[in-house]
């Protein structure tokens, strides 16, 4: 087989007859993700005719359009022109402080992780608490946040056999990434704690807490404090605090 030509970025790939994707790289890194979000911001500020929805992910932006209004080839040209501007806008995002309880029934993997890493549980917690996390994308299910920024020592592959039910708010580790679960469901991530904050609540004025580009710091709380916060969250209180950079 011949070697394929080197791919140059950004490039357009087609996702059918109602979506085009601009791909900025083939890696997970903050620079690529910022370009994705800058293009997304540009489309939100000045939407081209026929644009219906955008879906920003780690390193690409998918644009869903109405071909009855704009043809994909025209949209693709527009997107490449905007992508070439390299998005000077700084997508600093907001910084939120999330309460977290480490251990307990929703942290099935904390002890095992400590053993694997030959560290104490407190060391694991200290390492996890010490980092600032960045929301790279929201996807998979409503409000589910894929976080970057996990300290390298905590990187751990996912479980070979996913668990059937993980609760909303569970904070997990999957390879190099971290996550906050938004709804109960099966998952192969390794869970070390839980936040009472609800990333998604359709009944709330603000259904989704986070957008890509936001940053998260965790604040440790104990189980009894979590119970109070759970009650507030159930009433629709967002409970997370936006903090100054």
């Amino acid at each position, binding site marked *: *087989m011949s070697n*394929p030509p080197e791919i140059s970025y950004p490039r357009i*790939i*087609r*996702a*059918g*007859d*109602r*979506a085009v*994707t601009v*791909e900025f790289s*083939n*890696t*997970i890194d903050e620079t690529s993700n910022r370009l994705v979000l800058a293009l997304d911001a540009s489309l939100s500020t000045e939407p081209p005719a026929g644009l*219906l*929805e*955008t*879906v*920003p*992910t*780690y*390193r*690409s932006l*998918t644009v*869903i359009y109405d*071909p*009855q209004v704009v*043809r*994909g*080839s025209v949209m693709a040209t527009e997107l490449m022109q905007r992508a070439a501007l390299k998005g000077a806008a700084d997508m600093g995002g907001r910084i939120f402080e999330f309460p977290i309880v480490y251990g307990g029934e929703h942290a099935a993997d904390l002890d095992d992780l400590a053993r694997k890493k030959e560290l104490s549980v407190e060391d694991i917690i200290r390492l996890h608490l010490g980092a600032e996390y960045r929301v790279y*994308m*929201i*996807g*998979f*299910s*409503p*409000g*589910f946040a*894929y976080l970057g920024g996990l300290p390298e020592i905590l990187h751990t592959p996912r479980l070979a056999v996913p668990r059937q039910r993980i609760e909303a708010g569970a904070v997990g580790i999957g390879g190099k990434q971290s996550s906050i679960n*938004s*709804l109960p*469901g099966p998952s192969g991530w390794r869970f070390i704690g839980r936040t009472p904050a609800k990333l*998604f609540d*359709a009944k709330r004025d603000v*259904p*989704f807490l986070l*957008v*890509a580009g936001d940053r998260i710091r965790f604040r440790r709380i104990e189980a009894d404090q979590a119970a109070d916060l759970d009650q507030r969250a159930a009433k629709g209180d967002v409970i997370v605090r936006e903090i100054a950079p």
Partner: protein
Amino acid sequence: MSRTLKILRHGPLMTIQDGGRYGFRAFGVSTSGAIDRASHAIANALVGNDFEAAAIEFALAGGAIEADEDVMIAVTGGACRIEIDGQPVAPWESHILRKGQNLEIGALRGAVWGYLAISGGITTTPVLGSRSTHLRTGLGGLDGRKLAAGDVLPLGKPGDLELLALGLPYFRRPEPITVVPGPQDDYFDRETWATFTTGPFEVTASRDRMAMVLDGPPLTADKGHDIISDATVVGSIQVPGSGKPIVLSADGQTTGGYPKIATVASVDLARLAQMPSGQHFRFKAISADAAEELFIHDQKRLADALNSLCRPGDRRFWG
């Protein structure tokens, strides 16, 4: 007491669906809505509703319902036995269902997804702008779940009880299922691509509102079966390590980590979804530009059909 509809007996999968939930894919929320958009729109048109009003979608077989007020009903999606108090009536036309009468909807023949529209539409509370049910996340519909016997659904105010039928037919093309290559067609070598477009593939029983798993010659991605997760769309054809393609449907997840060899052309989404399990078919690749042309043309044909409503005559387009 307001107008209501009661489910007396339920089919295997009955949910409330409207035109779909738009604007939230960036937040991980699937579009949902009717799997067969055209059949759903036609059912609504036949009872005088907005084309995107909430109706009942049923898989494989309907069930029995009654209303506590006189309403118009229409069943579309495919051919099936329909009876009102034991009297057979035709699909793809509207009928009056009097207060307390029993509407029975049997099994679909040669189709998978059926629609029951009721005049006034179902008026459960919208969630994120839509009444569509997304079962996996429990959003929309009636408490985010399948309908069951005993459920009572609120209905909107109906217009006149004036029977309607389509004056123009809306047929589908009996050809291979058209796809647009990509977005990750470069993960597959030429030989695999030839296999993909030769097939044949079989629709398996592993199917629901999220996805359809196909059987056929295994597809191997020579660049591997993992990508950095990116956006999926309705119609994305994912190829996991098993080599068996998965076609995402209305309730499909918004992002995914499998390479997507191709995307089903919009014009053929419903035709593929309506294929009974066990049916064989082939894929045919066309350009995105050509697929857009087909879609635009198809939307015009559907609009013409929807705008052709007339009093029912003796013409029957639907067998």
